[in-house]
């Protein structure tokens, strides 16, 4: 702590803060323009100059750290003159198109000009007009003449996204923000977010409105499981943009392309607005009562004839906690079955089961802030940049702001590989052997390399015994990893005080997925991720992946991970049962299993059902097969909560009035129960949350109307209490005959609702997302005579699809990765119906495959 004086006020402050930060904390105003709290200060706008006793030159408050005993003045005549002159120079040749400018009314330059009362300009300099142009992404426009060269956009691009898509071009007065490499742009919009003026504008919404005409509603993003906090900008009951606040949520103002630009599906065409019943092949719109009484009668009939065990429910992990809770309650209490599942569970379950076995808990309390503070980070699974950008950015923050080391496991040279100290180019499914190899090396180094307190953990001897044979030589032999690299990674882990692990699907969604994850949890426990503060994290594709499971949308457990009486059928099992005639009625809320689950099985199952009810916003592929279709609300049309992958319980706030006649799910389900002759009350989202608090101990202390995000559950202390090392040997089988490749299907759970095949409802995203493609090693493609963009046929034991090839430099040979930005390719055909015995999850990774050019 240091003591200093600012404008005569005695202040005590932390010594690692700048004068500007301390002044702001103490309510002392210093003007700024280039400063942004998320960016490294560069002191270039010169507005924050202050005078410090002992220094003849004015110094910038944003770049000068506080020191003991300094005396600072922020308001003097001299400073006023310097600031006014700087501002006049900024204003030189700034266009006077404020009435046309998107930022007018919310423009930092306007505010400063007003504040300093600048009404004349004595300076002149010639500069040619640059006009308006497309920026590094088609989603953003650049109005270079309005630019004040604060460089925040460039810094955000370099410091947060680390994409280097834009840069400062030229020198002197002609210097400007230019495009360095459009291919490097990830369209995250970080640049747009930090622009203080109207130099960068978004171009998804065709409707624009003045800032004061808009209403900003803070809510939670509905794409991936990070649950970023964002504001929907509403004008005349339409979303016309998305903004964000620096201090909210795990994202602290950052968003990815989906969150910032993927909102227009909300106003997509083909929205279902009326209940419909299919009769003689034709859809007929019917009133709610008719639809619900029909469904109720049909369900009752099935229960009566075949028992409640022949009814099932599948709910989307993008439904709110309240919806999921009521849905599973409906299935369990009204229908009387445990046949309820969600694809969120298919992503989460391998992790839950693995940590359950090793740590004796169902969830971990780590937050992404722990990642940003880690000194060694292990990333395993999906392409974090593409799938969960904000998590990737937190990894980057640790890497280059804190000097952390990165150990990355991925078969492709993904963007993070460029920043990795050790990149392991593994085949999916080889992670367990790899983890055992690192465990072997860490054990060899002795207790100094291990986590504090780990020596007392049960099972250490068994782990030693199991790891004995995984010498670097053996590991190299098994999975083709260089011994040197493995040794280097072990060295980083051994030295690390605060290691962190992040994993994501398709890791875990492979054969023996739970064992795979267990291997990694063993390693994390040994290395200290669970005790050092770095944490073991799993991120996933769906906004309420965690909440859906915690609310009880699982055939294995009740809400709050409480054991139930017996288990129901899992998602895939329901279709298996259906095709055998053992499941007769299925209620699907917001899911699209034709896209996400083994296709042939689902098709067969759907055909055999006596009753298929699909409730969704749009007419999905699955909805077309239904007997009854019900309309559903969008995430922007309702109040409720999501639980993100960190366990933050976050609010969804109603921002839009839904189309006439649409109803909140609670009302739909309680009406349906009533038509079935049962009672299930659900008054409101807030009331349901109250009920959840009562029955789910993890949510007991939480508030529905909390002003900020809240962490559910306790148990932040002593994670070793119930820990037991759970050594696992290699379980992987060899390659299947006739299928020389291992295929992963990626992106399948990410973009539901935004449109499949022809619709591409998120038109903004459609501008930057390509068609599905199959990535393979460029070298291998060359050997096989397959060029970039060539069409190939991929065949697995379960089906085949045709797709374009994308050659990938540095990718592991023998591995294929099918990526689905949208769902123009029926990738679910390739997924097999075999389930992991413990998690009941089908394999989306390490699918045996072969390839032919067509």
């Amino acid at each position, binding site marked *: 702590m240091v003591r200093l004086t600012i404008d005569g006020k005695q202040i005590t402050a932390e010594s690692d803060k700048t004068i500007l930060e301390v002044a702001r904390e103490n309510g002392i105003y210093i003007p700024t323009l280039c400063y942004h709290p998320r960016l490294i200060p560069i002191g270039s706008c010169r507005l924050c100059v202050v005078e410090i006793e002992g220094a003849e030159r004015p110094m910038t408050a944003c770049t000068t750290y506080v020191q003991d005993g300094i005396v600072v003045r922020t308001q003097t005549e001299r400073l006023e003159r310097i600031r006014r*002159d700087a501002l006049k120079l900024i204003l030189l040749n700034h266009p006077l198109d404020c009435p046309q400018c998107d930022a007018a009314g919310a423009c930092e330059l306007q505010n400063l000009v007003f504040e300093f009362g600048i009404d004349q300009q004595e300076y002149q300099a010639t500069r040619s007009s640059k006009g308006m142009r497309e920026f590094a992404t088609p989603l953003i426009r650049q109005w270079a003449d309005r630019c004040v060269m604060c460089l925040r956009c460039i810094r955000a691009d370099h410091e947060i996204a680390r994409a280097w898509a834009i840069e400062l071009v030229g020198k002197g007065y*002609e210097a400007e923000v230019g495009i360095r490499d459009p291919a490097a742009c990830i369209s995250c919009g970080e640049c747009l977010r930090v622009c203080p003026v109207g130099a960068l504008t978004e171009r998804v919404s065709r409707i624009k409105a003045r800032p004061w005409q808009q209403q900003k509603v803070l809510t939670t993003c509905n794409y991936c499981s990070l649950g970023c906090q964002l504001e929907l900008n509403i004008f005349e009951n339409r979303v016309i943009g998305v903004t964000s606040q620096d201090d909210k949520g795990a994202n602290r103002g950052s968003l990815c392309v989906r969150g910032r630009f993927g909102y227009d599906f909300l106003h997509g065409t083909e929205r279902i607005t009326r209940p419909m019943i299919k009769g003689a092949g034709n859809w007929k719109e019917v009133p709610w009562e008719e639809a619900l009484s029909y469904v109720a009668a049909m369900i009752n009939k099935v229960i009566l004839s075949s028992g409640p065990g022949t009814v099932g429910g599948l709910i989307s992990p993008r439904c709110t906690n309240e919806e999921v809770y009521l849905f599973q309650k409906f299935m369990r209490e009204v229908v009387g079955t445990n046949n309820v599942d969600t694809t969120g569970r298919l992503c989460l379950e391998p992790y839950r089961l693995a940590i359950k076995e090793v740590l004796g808990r169902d969830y971990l309390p780590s937050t992404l802030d722990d990642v940003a503070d880690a000194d060694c980070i292990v990333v395993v699974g999906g392409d974090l940049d593409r799938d969960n950008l904000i998590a990737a950015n937190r990894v980057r923050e640790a890497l280059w702001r804190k000097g952390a080391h990165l150990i990355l496991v991925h078969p492709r040279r993904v963007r993070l590989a460029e920043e990795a100290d050790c990149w392991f180019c593994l085949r999916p499914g080889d992670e367990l052997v790899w983890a055992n190899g690192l465990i072997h090396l860490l054990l060899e180094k002795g207790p100094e390399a291990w986590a504090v307190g780990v020596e007392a953990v049960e099972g250490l001897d068994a782990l030693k015994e199991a790891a004995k044979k995984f010498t670097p030589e053996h590991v190299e032999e098994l999975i083709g990893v260089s011994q040197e690299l493995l040794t280097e990674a072990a060295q980083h882990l051994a030295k690390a005080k605060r290691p962190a692990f992040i994993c994501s699907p398709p890791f875990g969604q492979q054969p023996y997925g739970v064992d795979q994850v267990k291997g990694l949890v063993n390693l994390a426990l040994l290395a200290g991720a669970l005790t050092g503060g770095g944490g073991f994290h799993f991120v996933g594709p769906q906004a309420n992946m965690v909440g859906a499971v915690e609310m009880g949308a699982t055939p294995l457990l009740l809400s709050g991970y409480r054991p139930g009486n017996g288990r129901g059928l899992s998602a895939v099992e329901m279709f298996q049962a259906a095709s055998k005639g053992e499941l007769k009625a299925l209620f699907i809320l917001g899911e699209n299993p034709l896209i996400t689950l083994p296709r042939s099985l689902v098709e067969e199952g759907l055909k055999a059902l006596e009753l298929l009810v699909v409730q969704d916003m749009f007419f999905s592929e699955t909805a077309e097969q239904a007997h009854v279709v019900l309309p559903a609300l969008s995430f922007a049309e309702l109040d409720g909560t999501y639980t993100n992958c960190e366990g933050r319980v976050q609010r969804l706030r109603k921002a839009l009035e839904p189309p006439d006649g649409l109803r909140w799910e609670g009302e739909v389900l309680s009406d349906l129960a009533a038509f079935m002759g049962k009672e299930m009350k659900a008054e409101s989202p807030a009331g349901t949350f109250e009920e959840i608090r009562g029955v789910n101990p993890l949510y007991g202390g939480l508030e529905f109307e909390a002003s900020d995000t809240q962490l559910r559950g306790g148990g932040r202390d002593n994670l070793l209490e119930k820990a037991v090392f759970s050594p696992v040997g290699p379980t992987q089988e060899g390659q299947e005959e006739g299928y020389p490749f291992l295929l992963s299907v990626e992106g399948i759970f990410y973009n539901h609702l935004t449109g499949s095949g022809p619709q591409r409802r998120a038109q903004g995203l459609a501008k930057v997302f390509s068609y599905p493609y199959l990535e393979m090693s460029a070298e291998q493609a060359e050997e096989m005579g397959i060029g970039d963009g060539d069409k190939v046929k991929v065949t697995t034991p379960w089906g085949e699809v045709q797709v374009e090839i994308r050659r990938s430099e540095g990718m592991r040979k023998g591995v294929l990765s099918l990526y689905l930005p949208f769902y123009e390719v029926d990738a679910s055909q390739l997924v097999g119906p075999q389930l992991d015995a413990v998690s009941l999850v089908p394999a989306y990774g390490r699918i045996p495959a072969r390839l032919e050019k067509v």
Partner: protein
Amino acid sequence: MADVVFSYWGGKLTDNRGKAPQEYAEPERLKLPAEFKPGVRIKAFMGWNGFAVRDTDVSIVDMCRAYMEAVQKESCGKCFPCRVGTKVIAETLDRITQGEGRMEDLELMESLGHSILEGSKCNLGQTGPFPLLMALKYFREEFEEVIRGKKKVPRGNYKVKLTAPCMNACPAHLNIPTYIECIAEGDFADSLRVIRERTCLPGTLGRVCIRPCESNCRRLNVDEALDIRHLKRFVADYEIEKKRKPLIPTPQDRKDKKVAVIGAGPAGLTCAYYLALKGYPITIFERLDEPGGMAAVGIPDYRLPRHILRREVDIITSLGVEIRYNTEVGKDISISDMKKEYDAIFIGVGAQGSTPMRVEGEDAGYKGFIPGVQYLFSINKGKDPYPDGDRVVVVGGGNVAIDCVRSSFRIGKKDVNLFYRRTRREMPADEEEIHAAEEEGVKFEYLCAPTKIIAKEGKVVGVECIRMELGEPDESGRRRPVPIKGSEFVVDTDILIPAIGQRVDLSFLDEKDGVQATKWSTVVVNNETMETSQPEIFSAGDCVTGPDVLVRAAGSGRLAAEMIDLYLRGEKVEASDDERLEKLMGEIGVYDPEEHIGIIPGRKREQLKALPADTRKWSFEEVEEGFPVDTAMREAARCLRCYRVGMVAIG
């Protein structure tokens, strides 16, 4: 005779206007060289601290215009006062010189000029308008006359140079402020790219450079100099840690003229790298089985790990440079053979011979008597040079002597001594190195010199020394050591290592090669062009200068590459304007240790972590750990970015 009419520099005014030439006073601060290059006169000079006028026909107004345009052109575009303000002034001056000036322009420029000086972020803006303000003060009538006369002022002929104190002091002229700024902004790859424009040995120099830049760092005037050397090491290491492909430019199209390089030391490697980038096929002839020259065999691994140097050499060979190891020129191949096959030859053989101590028994071939460079070479090859001995005495006070003693522990020698004829204060070795050796337990004996080697059965068993005292200063300014009569004493030792200096061995040259040498056995070259007395043969590095520092050899190796390129393209072989200007700025003095910077001291210089002395002394593991990312960025943020523009008016 003083020939400068007017000079204002660093606050010192010399105004000879109106005086007869013979009465001219000599300017106090600014010594303005007479010629820019042979036959081209310097008529005036303008720079960060003021300006000087030699010829009265120079238009001050136009010179100010050109200077402000140069500042505007170099402005990085980040801070407004410099970026926009200098543009406003440059356009105003342009208008004035077009005959369209207004009297009120002068006040506007004065007030805006002051604002820019006060409000700019870096030294470019903080000095840019200064000479204009001084011109407006001392030559106002000239401005007013131009404005009143509404006549166009003819444009003068100027040469402009952007430099900085550190950059100018660096023998290889690395663009230090830019590469430091890149680090501060987190763009480590770009930082390395900037470094590689001037040297291909960033990891090596980042560890062992004697860093003239740091003693010319303006931050010294505020608190402590930046750790420029280790920031360079940081970006070089970062590329390796992250296993990135080395970021180097794509070489130009392959040329048909071939170049032979003799010696794979810093000079030869650098020369080869830059020639290879220009597309020339290069063959390096190396006497040893290992690249790096003195950097490899003379610097122990604990200071410069072998893999760092090897990787830098690998980058050079990846450009198609061939290195023929174990090839001794003069024995395995002659210069005249080379002349037949190659279109140009570069000699960079360094200074690897040992200077004799001139003591009795030196030439007797005793076992245990090992010259320092040989001793290090043997250790670096992984061999104990003399396993029979445990006690070591090293004679000398330079870095080689220190490397010898510190390496001795590392091969397991128990008793390690260093004898130096002066005191610790006069020791030429790096202070940090001396300190490290002390920490590791080397016994230092000052003010003594060997007089006789004592041997038994052909083996060294001791050395007789004599005490010294310091007398009058010699030409180097250090006090000369004088023996004290009768103070002889004997020290028992198994190994005696002379490390008092190296010399150039040119015995490989044949008289008929026609390459002239000095009487100190160094190669004679034209200092600007690196040409030897033979037109197709160039030379640089220690074999030209005598034993010198790595960075100078590397810097002149790059320069030689430029010159060889000119030669092979059939152009006139001469120094570039940029090179001349850099030298000129150096003569004028870019760094002023007396300058008052006007800001308060800030964060202290960051320190590298070192292994503890008692564990490191037994191992060749690198002693110092490089900066972690956050530390490097914090250190880089201390840079004051001292760019400044100098400009000469030439006739």
